[in-house]
């Protein structure tokens, strides 16, 4: 069987119980109209919509359980603390991390990366060391390393990509050397959908004992992530990109690394005792959770992950791959449309351009047809520069999107051509 044949064969294994129409009803926002037209929400790489179970959980928390955690000696505080701790375990199992204390609650992917750059990077890297990233990183996996580099005199190295938007593995391998002291790579490119072979990258880095951070913001809503299998040292993602609330995210770190890292911020919850002469820090994970956390967000994220678990990320991946291939084939038929990023391994994200129509004009016209996409540089300006375009239009699909919505995207693009024809 050809490789493509095998892929198609594999794709048939999509569970018959996967019913997109049923899932759509779980998301109240999806049934609304914009400009009198049904909403086709294709901007899931920016943020995902929330199922009713998450919205209800937030409502229940504020209606019946709200209290500060790890403090009050009263009923509500215990309820809130239990729910908070339970969510941490849900996330530990979701990532297949060894221990719950390796799961740190942060505001989002960005804060997680900044935490590692400042706490680990500032402590263990020094002048002349190299930090290796890739050409397809989001600004949030570039700028924290630039800030660190400026502070300590380290050097940022960038592994290049090919014209298909794939990381060039040989070049990456060449850049991993004895001066490299940290590697930070994205699992899935937010702008192109490229899926990086992170397990291999981790193996390459680990041969020289270099720790690796994986930016998993775009990975967790699309594909199964097994932290122990990937072998990475840090993994970060945002709750709002996996159907949970905004303002909450996860930093996974290997316990032995987190143990030797200093706190990122000081305040409540991260201490065990404070005297003016000396403060003793709390144990993991609390050492990194200063201040009253986003309790509702944590509980809401727990509910989002339970919702995803019910459908199953394997099913989600198979369904989205079908949708991706369908969308790719129909979009390629549109005259003048170029898809940016044609990696062999891709998640359900499609960036496209026209030579003489700017992405923002596409975005505005699509919006008027009820089709929500993203137009711009996708917080990846260096990547846009590498691709030689100022901006792209990006349609990004979740498991609740349908082929009918892809057809509406295509129709709406024809309206763009009508205006600019």
């Amino acid at each position: 069987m050809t490789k493509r044949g095998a892929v198609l064969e594999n794709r048939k294994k999509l569970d018959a119980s996967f019913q997109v129409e049923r899932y759509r009803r779980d998301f109240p926002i999806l049934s609304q109209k914009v400009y009198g037209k049904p909403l086709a929400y294709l901007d899931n790489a920016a943020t995902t919509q929330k199922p009713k179970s998450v919205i209800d959980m937030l409502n229940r928390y504020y209606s019946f359980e709200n209290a500060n955690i790890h403090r009050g000696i009263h009923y509500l505080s215990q309820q809130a603390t239990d729910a908070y701790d339970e969510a941490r375990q849900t996330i530990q199992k979701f990532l297949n991390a060894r221990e719950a204390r390796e799961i740190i609650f942060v505001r989002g992917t960005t804060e997680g990366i900044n935490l590692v750059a400042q706490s680990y990077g500032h402590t263990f890297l020094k002048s002349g060391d190299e930090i290796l990233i890739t050409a397809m990183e989001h600004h949030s996996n570039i700028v924290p390393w630039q800030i660190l580099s400026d502070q300590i005199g380290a050097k940022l190295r960038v592994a290049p990509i090919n014209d298909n938007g794939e990381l060039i593995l040989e070049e990456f391998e060449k850049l991993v050397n004895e001066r490299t002291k940290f590697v930070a790579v994205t699992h899935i490119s937010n702008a192109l959908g490229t899926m990086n072979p992170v397990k291999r990258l981790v193996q390459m880095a680990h041969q020289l004992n270099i720790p690796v951070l994986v930016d998993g913001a775009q990975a967790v809503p699309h594909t199964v992530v097994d932290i122990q299998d990937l072998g990475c040292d840090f993994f970060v993602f945002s709750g709002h990109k996996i159907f949970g609330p905004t303002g909450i995210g996860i930093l996974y770190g290997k316990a032995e690394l987190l143990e030797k890292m200093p706190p990122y911020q000081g305040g409540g919850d991260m201490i065990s005792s404070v005297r003016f002469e000396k403060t003793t820090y709390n144990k993991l994970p609390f050492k990194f959770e200063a201040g009253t956390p986003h309790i509702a967000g944590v509980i809401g994220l727990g509910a989002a992950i339970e919702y995803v678990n019910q459908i199953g990320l394997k099913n989600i991946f198979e369904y989205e791959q079908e949708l991706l291939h369908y969308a790719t084939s129909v979009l390629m038929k549109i005259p003048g449309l170029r898809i940016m990023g044609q990696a062999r391994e891709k998640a359900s994200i499609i960036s496209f351009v026209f030579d003489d129509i700017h992405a923002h004009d596409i975005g505005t016209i699509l919006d008027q047809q009820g089709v929500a996409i993203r137009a711009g540089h996708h917080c990846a300006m260096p990547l846009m520069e590498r691709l030689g375009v100022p901006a792209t239009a990006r349609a990004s699909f979740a498991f609740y999107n349908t082929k009918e919505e892809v057809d509406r995207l295509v129709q709406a693009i024809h309206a763009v051509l009508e205006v600019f024809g």
Partner: protein
Amino acid sequence: MISEELRELYQELILEHSKKPRNFRALEPASHTAEGFNPLCGDKIKLYLEVVGDEIKDIGFQGSGCAISKASASMMTTSVKGKTTSEANTLFNEFHKMLAGSSEPYDEGKLGKLSVFSGVSEFPVRVKCATLAWHTLRAGLESDGKVVSTES
């Protein structure tokens, strides 16, 4: 299929200027230059002015951007060329009033062809596309040499 609002936004004159921008060139030498940048969408413009006394003798621009920003830059150059700097400032103010959707009425007579951009006010996220060239013009005339950003 195409809504009335979209027709208002992408009027023929705008599409025509975006496809064939006027004064799309660098001036050498130029008495004043300025750069404009919209960090939200990456639109960039570099503006060249040849001001003699009080008169904008010549003007040119280069850059990349959406249809609205390109057409606006093109039509800005044609409408201020040969005008005095204070006349250009008046146009700036009227243009701004038209797009800011302010309660104060704008002077359509003064704006002339530039009123073709009035439809942009229905699209708040696109207002910055239309005003980028004008902000850059103002910066150029003040010639403080800084890059103007629509975010500032």
